[in-house]
């Protein structure tokens, strides 16, 4: 039984943790939240220099060709550091989609630039209230031109290009296209959201030039598979954030005094933190299940991904909510970092599709598993 990351992967974790800590990633997140522009550049540079963007890109396309387990380790540290960057869009989504679907020419053009960080990509899927479970998209591509409205789209404010999901000619499926976000017919507006440190935009495509992404026609099932993989990676971010929020709450409870003793000596507070520890521990176990399924492309990836996502979402929301509670009035201030965790936990709970989708997916897989 070796249900853990390898010593080398743990070294990568330590190095990545040190990097984000020394770069004071939370400070950058706060600045981003407070509306300062361009603050993410130095951090992005640093991340590129230590090769974070290229871990799942094969060496022939300029990556380090490490693998999913390394990416999971990095994702957890990104979550712990509350990192504000377009890493998830560019790597979990854009890079993945191009590796999965792209033509040889597209792979050779985009992958090295994505791996080096010089190019940023994203994935435009959502259309307001569109549910992830059925391809009822309105966006269409006709003769290589895209028309439609996508929102919210993560990191479109800084991305160079986007992969766009459009309705297939058959009407019941999805085709994927590559669009240059600096091209004509593309209007991008940043949206006001609950977590401005992970910017979201609305994109209006009006007769925008596009090229089909490789062989991504009638590709819904394979798109869903990419989203399953992203769910595991996001689960690791949520896990890192949850554990860090728990530690911040615990540390505060040890220093803050009331009624002549540490607030952490009161059972109500102790039990609240114990419950967070339980949720985080369950989430870690479930995230590792997801990591295993990713690393061996297991048939049960859908079940593992949904399990990891539901568990991590619940843990992060609980940890960030009760982190505020432990801090009392100070937890409610802008000045304290509590709301950064709270915003991030609630944003990550939604951006890849809500729990109602993932719970349905999980139970469907469980049903299939017992041939129900």
């Amino acid at each position, binding site marked *: *039984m*070796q*249900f*853990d*990351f*390898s010593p080398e992967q743990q070294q990568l974790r330590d190095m990545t943790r040190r990097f984000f800590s020394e770069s004071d990633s939370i400070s950058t997140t706060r600045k981003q939240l407070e509306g300062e522009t361009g603050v993410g550049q130095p951090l992005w540079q640093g991340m590129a220099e230590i090769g974070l963007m290229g871990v799942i890109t094969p060496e022939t396309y300029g990556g380090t060709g490490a693998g999913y*387990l390394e990416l999971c380790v990095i994702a957890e540290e990104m979550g712990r550091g509350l990192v504000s960057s377009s890493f998830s869009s560019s790597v979990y989504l854009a890079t993945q989609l191009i590796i999965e679907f792209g033509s040889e020419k597209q792979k050779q053009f985009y992958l090295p630039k994505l791996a080096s960080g010089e190019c940023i990509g994203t994935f435009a899927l959502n259309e307001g209230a569109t549910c992830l479970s059925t391809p009822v998209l309105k966006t269409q591509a006709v003769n290589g031109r895209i028309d439609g409205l996508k929102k919210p789209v993560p990191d479109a404010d800084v991305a160079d290009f986007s992969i766009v999901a459009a309705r297939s000619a058959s009407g019941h499926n999805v085709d994927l296209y590559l669009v240059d976000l600096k091209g004509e017919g593309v209007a991008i507006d940043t949206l006001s959201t609950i977590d401005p440190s992970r910017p979201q935009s609305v994109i209006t495509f009006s007769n925008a030039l596009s090229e089909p992404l490789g062989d991504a026609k009638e590709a819904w099932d394979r798109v869903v598979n990419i989203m399953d993989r992203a769910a595991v990676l996001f689960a690791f971010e949520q896990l890192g954030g949850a554990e860090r929020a*728990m530690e911040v709450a*615990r540390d505060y*409870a*040890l220093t803050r005094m009331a009624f002549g*003793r*540490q607030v*952490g*000596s009161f*059972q109500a*507070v*102790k*039990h609240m*933190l*114990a*419950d967070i*520890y*339980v949720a985080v*521990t*369950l*989430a*870690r*176990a*479930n995230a*590792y*299940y997801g*990591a*295993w399924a990713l*690393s*061996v492309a297991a048939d049960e990836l859908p079940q593992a991904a*949904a*399990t990891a996502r*539901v*568990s991590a979402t*619940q843990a992060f929301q609980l940890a960030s909510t009760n982190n505020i509670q432990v801090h009392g009035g100070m937890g409610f201030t802008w000045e304290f970092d509590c709301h950064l965790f709270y915003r991030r936990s609630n944003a990550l709970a939604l951006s890849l599709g809500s*729990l*109602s989708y*993932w*719970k*349905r997916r*999980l*139970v469907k897989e*469980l*049903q299939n598993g*017992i041939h*129900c």
Partner: protein
Amino acid sequence: MNFDDSASDAEFRSEVRQWISDNAPHEWAQDLEKSIYGELNPSLQAADSLDVAKAWQKKKYDSNWACLTWPKIYGGRAASAIQQVIWSQEEGVYEKLARPFFLGHGMCGPTLMEYGTEDQKQRYLPMMASGEEVWCQLFSEPAAGSDLAGLRTRAEREGEGWRINGQKIWTSGAHQSDFGMILTRTDAGVEKHKGLTMFFLDMRSPGVDVRPILQMSGHQDFNEVYFDDVIIPDSQRIGEVGQGWQVSLATLMNERLSVGSTMPTGFSELLELCCNLSVDGTLAIEDYAVIDTLADLAVRDSGLKYTSFRSMTSLADGNIPGPESSISKLVAASAMQEIAQFALDIQGPSGLISGQDSQLAEGRFQAMLMRSPGARVEGGTDEILRNIIAERVLGLPADIRVDKGIAFNKIPSA
């Protein structure tokens, strides 16, 4: 990141699998599959099931498959922790037959090994391992459950031996035990933890009175045990006088080895129920309300399973598992209660029907409903477990103790 055995563990596993296949009491397999909490079959007398259990234990012992991690001279095999886990996995349903020996093998034996004299170990450990002698744990009392150190059963010097008076409660298996390990108070004039001494005694000694307790579930697994001037020799003392508390802590290390088996929550039975039960013309599993609850329970069940895999990984590497295993009972016990209540809810009014009259899952969920409150209390209440996690894992301060630094006989009580 894999679930594979190392080469040597794989070899061990196939040896175990072969032996079990050749030797296990397969005629009981079906009954064991269906049994809830170790009852072989509700209609079998308790005495019969103990005979079956003892026969299997002796068979294992005779081939060196009992108490695997114990030293060979005491009846074990000097196996590693991960080998013990592998054995448990392979033993499968037959492990339910080991229930009568749980406390002996898991607590009394290790305590003797750490604090007993060589004479005590040689005389008692092999017979404990073989199941020929059954042991119970005489710790809790009416006034001392969570606050175990507040116990009152006293042992007073009587010539060369000791005289014991008092009462123990919640003693599992006392009615079928040959020996019991008993924690007593030998000095009420000092702080409560310092005045305790551990002994063991023959459960058939004059003055020992075992009375079954009827549980809310209708079963009788627990007992009260009364001690009325019970005389025992000093050779049955374990550890020094006044060292009883430290001796009682010897079992904690051993609890970590039980990480191999996950406590059942009933989730897989619930899933099956939801897949097959029609409610108002729709399959339960198609209803989002059911899906929502099932998913929440699924991730707790899954989280427990993979947490135990993480602990097993530590054992396989020859390390002590981390603190993650402290969540197990806390999560599993209340998950079981919630699963039981939910399963009954989707059955509607027929959820009231229990036992053999229930047409759904043979009344398992109704039995779980009645058993689960005990699971949230025994072996550490949910509240104590939360305190332990907060203090020992998260480093938060201990509760304020108003009985610290006071002689036991000065502590206020009801």
